């Protein structure tokens, strides 16, 4: 079993994907789910994280097409070639195309999209075909393949040799290849915290934000990424995932409508689309803060109202994302509007109508409709502890 002699891999662990043209064989929501599950096959076995993008410039573009479809490899009608994908790289690199003259299903009739897509994404990540009939990367379609353990040992060995072993302990990728965090270079470096103990009872976060279908937890210069449906958590230095960011993050929030996250450090912020940090950092004064505001403790976007709330010591501001102006009548005292919260907020994240306020190792679940705290939990439970 060999993968490319010229090792062909993405030079990052957070990879974006986008679905361009859909098939008419399945509802779009079903295609979305099957594609996400097919990517999860590789995410669960590796240090990779896949973030859905709505742009046409994602690393992995998924398209359904027939015959001639814009690359040098026309499809051939039903049966024969089912799909193909390109190895990691710019432009068409990573893209996966599915022959829409096939009948795509979620079950055993026709061709199961989940099985074929999981195979094609292997190519998108740099794997080649395997001669082992048990391998997911075997060239021919097998409807009998168990959808539980799709990957063979070789598949797992290869993906880990490409992207670093599954993070039983955090690894980082540098010009020297994959290194565990106890690498002397790493320990002696500016990074004081070799490895965050994510289950310590007093774990707290500097910032928490949704980003795509994952939740990002920032602490010092470290990052944990937890996929909403998955149990495994990716972790490592922030700039391992976002090379442009060399500092810690004080606050972060996600505006779903724009598929954009905002990461704030002192008086500047970066915007992140997919897994790409866009351009240079900008001043937080862009939001309309008065000059004396030079640091934000926490930020959270409330999808229901279109407002982003910025928390600073014992006050907070409300920013109207639709009109992109600060709401009048602010700042207000946090304790006046959020009963039960009369302390500085470390981080905040909005999920399903609740704001979760992270205060040190505690998390307060705030019902935004009832305007009251309805529960408390430990911060480390968010990392599966």
């Amino acid at each position, binding site marked *: 079993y060999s993968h*490319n002699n010229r090792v062909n891999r993405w030079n990052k662990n957070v990879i974006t994907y986008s679905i361009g043209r859909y098939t008419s064989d399945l509802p779009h929501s079903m295609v979305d789910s099957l594609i996400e599950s097919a990517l999860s096959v590789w995410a669960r076995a590796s240090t990779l994280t896949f973030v859905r993008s709505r742009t046409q410039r994602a690393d992995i573009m998924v398209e359904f097409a027939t015959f001639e479809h814009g690359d040098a490899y026309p499809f051939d009608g039903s049966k*024969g*070639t*089912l799909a193909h994908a390109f*190895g990691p790289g710019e432009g068409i690199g990573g893209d996966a195309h599915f022959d829409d003259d096939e009948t795509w299903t979620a079950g055993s009739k026709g061709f199961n999209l989940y099985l074929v897509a999981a195979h*094609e994404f292997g*190519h998108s990540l740099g794997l080649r075909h395997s*001669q082992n009939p048990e391998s997911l990367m075997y*060239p021919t*379609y097998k409807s009998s393949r168990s959808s539980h353990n799709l990957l063979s040992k070789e598949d797992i060995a290869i993906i880990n040799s490409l992207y670093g072993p599954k993070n039983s302990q955090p690894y980082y990728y540098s010009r020297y290849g994959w290194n565990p965090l106890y690498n002397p270079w790493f320990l002696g470096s500016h990074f004081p915290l070799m490895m965050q103990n994510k289950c310590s009872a007093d774990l707290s976060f500097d910032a928490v934000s949704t980003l795509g279908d994952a939740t990002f937890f920032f602490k010092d210069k470290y990052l944990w990424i937890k996929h909403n449906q998955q149990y495994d958590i990716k972790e490592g230095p922030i700039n391992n995932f976002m090379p442009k960011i060399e500092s810690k993050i004080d606050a972060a929030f996600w505006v779903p409508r724009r598929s954009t996250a905002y990461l704030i450090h002192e008086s500047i912020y970066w915007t992140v689309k997919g897994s790409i940090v866009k351009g240079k950092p900008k001043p937080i004064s862009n939001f309309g803060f008065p000059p004396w505001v030079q640091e934000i403790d926490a930020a959270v976007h409330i999808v229901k109202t279109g407002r982003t709330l910025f928390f600073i010591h014992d006050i907070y501001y409300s920013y109207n994302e639709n009109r992109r102006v600060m709401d009048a009548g602010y700042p207000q005292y946090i304790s006046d509007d959020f009963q039960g919260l009369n302390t500085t907020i470390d981080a905040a994240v909005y999920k399903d109508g609740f704001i979760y306020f992270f205060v040190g190792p505690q998390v307060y679940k705030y019902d935004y409709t009832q305007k009251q705290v309805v529960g408390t939990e430990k911060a480390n439970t968010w990392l599966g502890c």
Partner: protein
Amino acid sequence: APTSIPEEEVTALLTGQTQEDLKLATEYLRHYYNLKKEQPLARIKRNLPSFTSKVKDMQSFFGLNTTGSLDSETLEVMSTPRCGVSDVED
């Protein structure tokens, strides 16, 4: 220069093969095993060595008997729906 193949072996390799089988095999080997495109089907006999060696490459990849001939097992694999990525190229 391609080694000459005794006439009877050529016949043996291609006997019983329908034009359809040859077409399927040629397309398959071009797509997945880098069989050079400029070999028109009709002149297959003159280019048999590379055709045969490509058939053997494919048979070896799939763990079949590497006879170099288009036996039923080989044709069956060639007819199986599959991924469009080459088995031998990046």
